[in-house]
């Protein structure tokens, strides 16, 4: 087992302005907030905008980055605010301690909600967060001994350092600047990449070694904690909290803010929040008619979704990108040679499948299949349509749980592991219908494949980047690493998928119909690639319909039919096996009539 050779770290992408620029800009804004003589009304508006922006950035993370919805951000905001309000006023606790307690509370609540529903997907989550929002409001109003009911909590103190309104405002802006920086940098971090992968394609993310459920729950907890933090700051700023400030309607206001500004960037969050706090101030007269004000919010939500799907900032940055495109130039590095896990191992068996069965109701898709994949071999699994090949592959990679049977990968029983744990244990796979992360570049896709604890390449970004580029170079796409995957042809997308699997340093590579949809030239290239992979000693299990390809590359063939193994052995004997000929090839493959 070898890891990749060290490649010189190369800085690929320079942000429009880096950390230094951000710090300078933030310092100027904070200084301005701390020193400019605002009148009380303006201070209040700015304070509201700053605290709301923190909460709205939570939605940037969960909605923009991870693609999950949260319709209870006002509830989390309220929990943070009540933690500070009740903690300082009723229990005389220290302000900072209360902020901490509030954060613990919202993260626990967020994690609980997330854990119970996130695996079920969007609609459930939307409805459950609405329910949670309603329950929180119900409790705030009705649990009078604890919450003071509809009267709310007043005279909430500010922390000792920032008792003046202006000082507190400067503090809030500082917090906003720090949160903004973290949210801005998050997409390029391993966690942020995992979130984007989950948003783009959950199944592919799990097979690339990402714990999808944990990533979503983390995103949700981050969102909740930013909501709670914003609420805690809000309580200190306004000295008064009551249930109506944290109702479902306010959750919609938060959502409108992030949508209006744009979900893709923290700047969008600030823009949207600022606008939706200022505009209603200008339209104060609307508040005299109950409902009118919120009706306009509802209408605004529909109009934004219809006509400005990327929000104001998204629209703006698209417009600027159109003019600034020439700046991005790919730097083709001399990629290091790709090292793969060779044929050295504890024993001769990379995979042992025993009595594997998968039944869907009465349908026995796989019915007691056993076979062994030898180390360093190319093993093909073939069979007529509906014979259970793809089901077998899906059970092997953990997408389906088997009805019965056992799978041992390189000495480890992986039968009960989820997909990402199998990847960590040494499995890599591709999909019949290509599953790439479509909002990312080729190299980002492959980095995600490299980035899992089972890969000896480590966690350092330059090592992962070098590994990914080496993998892309290996499949022949090294010079196009920084292009978006959507700009590649179908055949090349397949190669990127193979590179993604290779980058993870698998012990066993599963290929699900890699030749499907390729033209003859591409098939020849694919055959060559598979032979080069095999030459490096990596074990391959391949499913395909293309007999030319299978008989070209495979050293061992297992044939399935009706969910059972009907033949197993070397290509010549298997392809001449009478059962195989009748079941799979037909008697005379030439004449259709």
């Amino acid at each position, binding site marked *: 087992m070898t890891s990749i050779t060290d490649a010189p770290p190369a800085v690929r992408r320079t942000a429009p302005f880096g950390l230094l620029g951000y710090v300078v800009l933030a310092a100027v804004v904070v200084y301005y907030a701390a020193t400019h003589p605002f009148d009380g009304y303006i201070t209040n508006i700015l304070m509201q905008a700053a605290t709301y922006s923190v909460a709205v950035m939570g939605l940037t993370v969960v909605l923009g980055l991870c693609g999950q*919805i949260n*319709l209870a951000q006002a509830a989390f905001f309220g929990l943070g605010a009540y933690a500070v309000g009740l903690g300082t006023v009723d229990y005389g606790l220290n302000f900072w301690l209360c902020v901490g307690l509030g954060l613990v509370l919202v993260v626990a609540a967020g994690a609980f909600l997330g854990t119970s529903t996130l695996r079920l997907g969007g609609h*459930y989550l*939307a*409805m459950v967060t609405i329910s949670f929002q309603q329950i929180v409001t119900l409790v705030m109003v009705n649990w009078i001994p604890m919450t003071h009911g509809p009267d709310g909590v007043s005279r909430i103190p500010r922390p000792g350092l920032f008792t003046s309104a202006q000082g507190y405002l400067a503090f809030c802006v500082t917090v906003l600047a720090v949160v903004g920086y973290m949210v801005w940098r998050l997409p390029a971090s391993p966690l942020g990449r995992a979130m984007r992968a989950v948003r783009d394609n959950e199944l592919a993310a799990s097979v690339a070694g990402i714990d999808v459920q944990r990533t979503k729950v983390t995103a949700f907890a981050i969102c909740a904690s930013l909501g709670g933090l914003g609420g805690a700051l809000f309580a200190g700023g306004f000295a008064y909290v009551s249930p109506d400030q944290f109702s479902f309607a306010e959750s919609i206001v938060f959502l409108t803010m992030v949508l209006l500004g744009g979900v893709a960037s923290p700047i969008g969050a600030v823009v949207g929040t600022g606008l939706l706090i200022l505009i209603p101030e200008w339209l104060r007269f609307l508040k005299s008619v109950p409902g*009118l004000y919120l009706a306009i919010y*509802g209408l605004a939500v529909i109009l934004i*979704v219809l006509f400005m799907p990327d929000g104001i900032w998204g629209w703006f940055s698209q417009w600027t990108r159109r003019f600034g495109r020439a700046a991005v130039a790919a730097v083709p590095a001399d990629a290091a040679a790709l090292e793969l896990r060779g044929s050295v191992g504890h024993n001769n068996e990379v995979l042992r499948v025993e009595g594997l069965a998968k039944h*869907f109701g009465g349908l026995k898709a796989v019915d007691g299949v056993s076979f062994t994949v030898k180390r360093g071999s190319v093993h093909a699994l073939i069979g007529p349509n509906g014979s259970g090949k793809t089901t077998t592959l899906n059970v092997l990679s953990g997408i389906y749980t088997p009805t019965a049977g056992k799978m041992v990968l390189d000495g480890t029983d992986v039968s009960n592991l989820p997909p990402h744990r199998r990847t960590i244990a040494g499995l890599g796979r591709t999909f019949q219908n290509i599953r790439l992360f479509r909002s990312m570049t080729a190299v980002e896709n492959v980095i995600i494949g490299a980035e899992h604890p089972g890969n000896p390449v480590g966690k350092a970004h330059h090592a992962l980047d070098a590994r990914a580029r080496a993998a892309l170079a290996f499949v022949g796409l090294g010079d196009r690493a920084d292009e978006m995957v959507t700009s590649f042809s179908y055949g090349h997308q397949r190669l990127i998928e193979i590179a993604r699997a290779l980058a993870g340093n698998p012990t066993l590579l599963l290929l699900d119909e890699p030749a499907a949809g390729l033209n003859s030239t591409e098939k020849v290239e694919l055959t060559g690639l598979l032979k080069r992979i095999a030459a490096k000693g990596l074990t391959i299990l391949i499913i395909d319909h293309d007999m030319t390809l299978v008989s070209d590359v495979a050293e061992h063939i297992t044939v399935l039919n009706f969910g059972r193994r009907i033949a197993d052995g070397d290509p010549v004997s298997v392809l001449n096996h009478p059962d195989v000929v009748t079941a799979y090839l037909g008697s005379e493959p030439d004449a259709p009539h």
Partner: protein
Amino acid sequence: MDLVLQLLFTGIGIGSVYALVALGFVLIFRATNVVNFAQGEFSMVAAFLMVIFAVDLEWPYWLSFLLALAGMALYGVIFNLGVYYPLRHRTYLPVIISTIGASILVANTMLALYGPQPQVLSPVFETPGFNVGPVYLDSQYLLIIVVTMVLVAFQYWFFEHTLLGKKLQATSQDKEMASLLGIPVATMIMITFVYSAVLGGLAGILVAPILFVSIQMGGTIALKAFAATIIGGFGDVAGAIIGGLALGVIETFGAAYISVPYKDGFAFLVLVLFLVFRPQGLFGERVAEKA
């Protein structure tokens, strides 16, 4: 025992309302793969239309009823054209958000027009009810149960035994393929929205004399209808009906034996329990997992 029977009757009555709204939920979900978060407002708008026609304008009840349903059909058309149809090629998230926007818009427009004061709509029958043995049958509840049973039977016949029903199903399963066969997809979706709006409206009109007519009624009903669909297994028509009835019964018994103020909490509790322990609902997934 008498109390149990009485509660069972009431529970099935209120559960029928949930079932009707849940049915509308499921139909739109199957046709568009979108959960309509403004489903509850269908009921609310219809109830307000009844208040306008029958109470404010003092028109005859049956005329008001027909006009209200016609109004709901029109509302379904507008809703589809304004909220769903322009977004049909986008992912589910923008559509969810758009329906939430619609829900807020409609509820608050009603608030702006009518103020926060709940409105009262009198029951259909003059006779409030009668006794059958130990059980008192409230005539409005009885009406709700009968109407629901008729509608469920109609719907079964419609989807299983008419070509139009099959075309609607085909549209909900694969729109592009449906259009290649000459099925007018846009019309099919429109029919779904209109039918769903009328169904929700009917539920709102039927339940209005029992609850107050208020802008909150939509949200409450929608959440319970959603809980009902979870209980029944998401996207399953029969499941939605049984889920709705079950929820009505659970809620009624919960209110009687446990706590009245937290009556509305039972729906959420059941919702969360199902999500955690049996997310596929009572009847499981119809279509098995297929890659």
